[in-house]
């Protein structure tokens, strides 16, 4: 008899445990869903922030390349330049302060057209003896952080040089 009561008591304790576990499960499921709901908004704004900062980083690559004009490392030298910043020490790299580091931005200067006639602002400014020739460059800057964001921007650059026709 005593054995049986004992066993009964054991069974009742087990039921309490199962009931408690069930409640815990329900509460866990609800809180996980709630957390998932609020993390959706977090993910969205996170992605948005990534894409904005990626765009700004790529733009920074263009601006930094332009800042090299008339320096010792001028990439607008009549030929393609695969990495305009190759001469810089990593600590002095103009893009070293970017959030994802200088390595995340890949800049390139491409010579589109070698020295040729300069474009005119409009037909009325046409002149018969051009003083300058022009070189056409294109700066391409790509920022990429894998699985986060990727932006590529390009900018055309026109360089006036003392014309062959003028000499």
């Amino acid at each position, binding site marked *: 008899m005593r054995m049986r009561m004992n066993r*009964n008591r054991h069974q009742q304790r087990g039921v309490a445990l199962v009931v408690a576990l069930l409640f815990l499960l*329900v509460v866990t499921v609800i809180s996980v*869903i709630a957390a998932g709901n609020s993390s959706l*908004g977090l993910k969205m704004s996170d992605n948005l922030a990534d894409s904005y900062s990626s765009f700004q980083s790529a733009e920074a690559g263009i601006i930094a390349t332009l800042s090299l004009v*008339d320096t010792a490392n001028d990439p607008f030298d009549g030929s393609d330049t695969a990495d305009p910043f190759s001469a810089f020490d990593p600590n002095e790299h103009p893009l070293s302060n970017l959030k994802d580091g200088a390595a995340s931005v890949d800049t390139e200067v491409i010579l*589109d*057209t*070698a020295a040729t006639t300069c*474009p005119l602002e409009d037909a009325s400014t046409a002149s018969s003896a051009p003083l300058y020739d022009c070189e056409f460059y294109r700066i391409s800057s790509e920022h990429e952080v894998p699985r986060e964001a990727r932006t590529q921007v390009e900018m055309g650059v026109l360089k006036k040089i003392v014309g062959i026709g003028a000499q």
Partner: protein
Amino acid sequence: MNSRTERGFSLVELMVGMVLGLILIGGAVSIYLASKRSYVEVEQVAALTESARFAEQIIGDSLRHAGFFGGVSVGMIEASSSLTAVPSAQDCNDTGLTGGTDLASANNLGQFVFAGTVDSSNSALGCITGSGVEGGMEGTDVLVIKRVLTQPYTDGPRDSLDPNDPTQGDGTIDTPDSLDNNKTYVMTNNVKGLVFDGDSPPDISLGGEIPGGMAWEYNYEVYYIRDPDPTSTDDTPQLSRKTLKWNGTAMELQREDVAEGVENLRVLLGYSSNADGEVDTYKTPSQMAAADWVKVQSVEVFLLTRSATRDVQYTDVKQYQMPGTAIPVANDNYRRLISHASVSLRNLKLMARGGV
């Protein structure tokens, strides 16, 4: 002993058990309802944000490319004599602007950003007209952007040293694809440009019209807000745009829907009033004088977006400030979001800058 162990609950036990059970179930139900409500809210806000972000991205991308015509100065671009005109009943114009000359029209590339406001007869700039689904929503702005797409078409592989060298290539535009007869293109070399129909490309051989030219697809976009069903108060307003399309006999402006739920679009145009290159003046389209348009350096875009479905547990009692006006309190069950982007134009017609 046996009968005692199997006798069940006493009344007190049952009552206590039921009360405890009810408290627990009540708690669970209230948590469930709250999470369901928050789910609806999160979902609506997410869809709303996504719509606004998408609209802003599309307009921003277009604005950044506004005035890009394949690297040639916009003053050197002419229209081909064989270019099919856009019928004036279709085309946008700057009627009402003192001193303006076709600033908004499709084939005048000279002014590549223009804006107007929809009047009380749902019309703006002559191209957003008519009642019903074709008209715009009163008081919203219309934004005109002209540019070419960034993919050039050439007549074959070009030497990177001088892609404009007319002796390269075979003179027929076919790389990466041949021209579409029903589209408008701009042919440019580094000196001049020509707007032409895809079925009559200019001569790009040495001594031709545009020696060594590359072709770029012309894109004309008129962004505006429309009401897809003016008879209903329960439909969702759309951000739409009109683009140049061939209708079989002529070029016409055809409608494309861009983003759902965008209820209001307003723009501010920024320029430098003292020609030092710094934007110091912002004007709404109606405040702009004809001579101001050429100076535009930056465009601020304001969008008011609302959710696609009502939420009966929510009432919008906010007042939204848009440039030039305050939107009256709606007092309805839609969630709304106001968003704003400031885009500086990359291709300026007037360069106000000293030094290098």
